[in-house]
């Protein structure tokens, strides 16, 4: 079957403008996007530029945008893509600086990974960067690590998640899904000695609380790392480790408290409980709160639906268990 591939191009040596190239290629059931691109580069247009190496979804180099979605070119079947989307529009991954064609600047991605100290700090001295002697590994502490990691160690650093991340799009300083998933991977490693420092660092701006839980990272990740779920675990671990004073942590604890008391979320009470003590933020809410009240959008703060007793019983069963 012959098909057409439309490629978003950029080559600053030739022209400062982005441009589009169309290529007509032969494809059968087994053709991957990467093999099509290699064919184009070898036979049709040698200037077409992209990164690739393993051809088997291992190295993570060939990430690009395929019909608007971040995908590994070597894992995309042209046939399937045509069947579901009816067209093949390819371009560099979103929200990154383009160097040439599909090649983007990844320095900012690596900087984020480095920022979370992506290695086990086995003793305090290691954090300084000084080499330490390898000791005999004890197997026992690592016995259950596989379950604990929840596949957070499966990352191939393809950057799909960062490129698709809703927060990163509007806030480029955000550490992002891949780095945070990696942070989780070291937080739960029993050999690591700086767990609390790690958690504290993640509370800062651009850390775990900047995630909006949009699920883009979970959806695009080719390795089922589910970064957002690791971020949620980091939030839970932070609260359990006593890092519960922030507005962000209060969102979780107070939301849960309100539902536990009333059975439902009370949109009037929650912001007050969350922002109490954080006066600047609370103050900024006041004009909106007044307008909401005037528009009939602010429910009476102390109403309780009838069924809240059952909900309270459910909550009680949980607190009894956790005690």
């Amino acid at each position: 079957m012959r098909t057409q591939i439309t490629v978003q191009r950029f080559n600053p040596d030739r022209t400062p403008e982005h441009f589009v190239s169309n290529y007509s290629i032969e494809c059968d059931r087994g053709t991957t996007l990467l093999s099509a691109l290699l064919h184009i580069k070898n036979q049709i247009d040698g200037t077409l530029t992209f990164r690739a190496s393993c051809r088997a979804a291992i190295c993570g180099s060939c990430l690009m945008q395929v019909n608007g979605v971040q995908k590994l070119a070597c894992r995309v079947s042209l046939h399937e893509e045509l069947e579901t989307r009816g067209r093949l529009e390819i371009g560099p991954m979103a929200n990154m600086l383009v160097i040439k064609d599909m090649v983007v600047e990844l320095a900012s991605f690596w900087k984020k990974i480095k920022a979370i100290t992506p290695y086990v700090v086995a003793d305090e001295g290691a954090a300084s960067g000084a080499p330490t002697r390898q000791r005999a590994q004890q197997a026992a502490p690592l016995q259950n690590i596989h379950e604990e990691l929840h596949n957070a160690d499966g990352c191939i650093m393809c950057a799909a998640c960062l490129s698709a991340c809703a927060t990163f799009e509007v806030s480029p300083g955000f550490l992002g899904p891949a780095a945070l998933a990696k942070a989780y991977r070291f937080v739960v490693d029993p050999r690591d000695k700086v767990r609390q420092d790690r958690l504290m660092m993640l509370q800062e701006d651009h850390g775990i609380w900047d995630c909006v839980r949009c699920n883009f990272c979970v959806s695009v990740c080719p390795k089922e790392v589910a970064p957002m779920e690791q971020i949620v675990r980091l939030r839970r671990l932070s609260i359990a480790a006593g890092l519960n004073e922030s507005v962000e942590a209060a969102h979780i604890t107070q939301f849960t408290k309100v539902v536990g008391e009333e059975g439902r979320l009370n949109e009037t009470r929650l912001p007050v409980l969350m922002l109490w003590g954080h006066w600047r933020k609370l103050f900024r809410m006041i004009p909106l709160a007044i307008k909401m009240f005037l528009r009939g959008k602010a429910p009476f703060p102390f109403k309780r639906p009838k069924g809240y007793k059952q909900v309270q019983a459910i909550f009680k069963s949980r607190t009894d268990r956790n005690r």
Partner: protein
Amino acid sequence: MKYAYYPGCAAKGATPELHQATLKVVERLGIEIVEIDNFNCCGAGVITEADPDLAYLLNAKTLAAAEALGLDIMTVCGTCQGTLGGINKVLQTDETLRNRINVSLKEATGLAYNGTVAVKHLQWILVQDYGLDTLKRAVVLPLNKLAIAPFYGCYILRPASAVRFDNWENPQSLEKLIKALGAEPVLYDGRTKCCGFPVFLEKEEIALGMVGSRVAEAKGQGANAMVTPCPLCHMSLDIYQERSGEKIEIAPGQDRKMNMPILHLPQLLGLALGFTAKELGMKHHFVSTASIDDRLEGK
């Protein structure tokens, strides 16, 4: 056609217009609903962050209540759909977990869930169960003067494991509904992105950035209004729209006020079924919807 109706906290709280419009629309379409007695919060993914088992229990209670009625659940909130629907999928497939949850649920409430209920958003019910052709026949005021930008929001699309209706990469159900009502769907990148709602109180900068770019993009593509199946997205796009004007790039002399009316899905349906803006509760909105009326009246 009969469903157990799960309104969710927002439709009974900060977006009462959603509940109001839903009741009007389902009655006109002949879809029968029974509101789940004393329904509780789904947890919106937040309670899961505190204690996953607690979220399972709260939603198992809702599912058990619908099961006792012998009905599938209808939601009108994208976030409830994602949470309740997602947890339903897990409870249906993981029997060990379901049994464990049922033990605590029974102790606390006397209820148990056997995994027989389907959870469907009104949006899906109309496309799949009710049918677009039937819907078309019910339209009394075709909305052919309106260009409508669909805004899906996150949880009605992702993660795919919880949803399995629209393909998140290229969802079509809102577009189909918009067309069935006679209006023209507007295509823009932001339709499947995030509204920023989950971080409004703590990270307003990030959230406003999202609202600003969604609304500005829809406007740039010629939308007269945006429609969403999620009341939390509605709150973001409506309540914070004016503030998000600080965040958008504008040409010199252009107004930062975007004045983009934001409609709940049942409100858009309601307009085509002949209800007035007043009957659909539009007085509760922050951004005026008068421009829609003007257009429909050909002014």
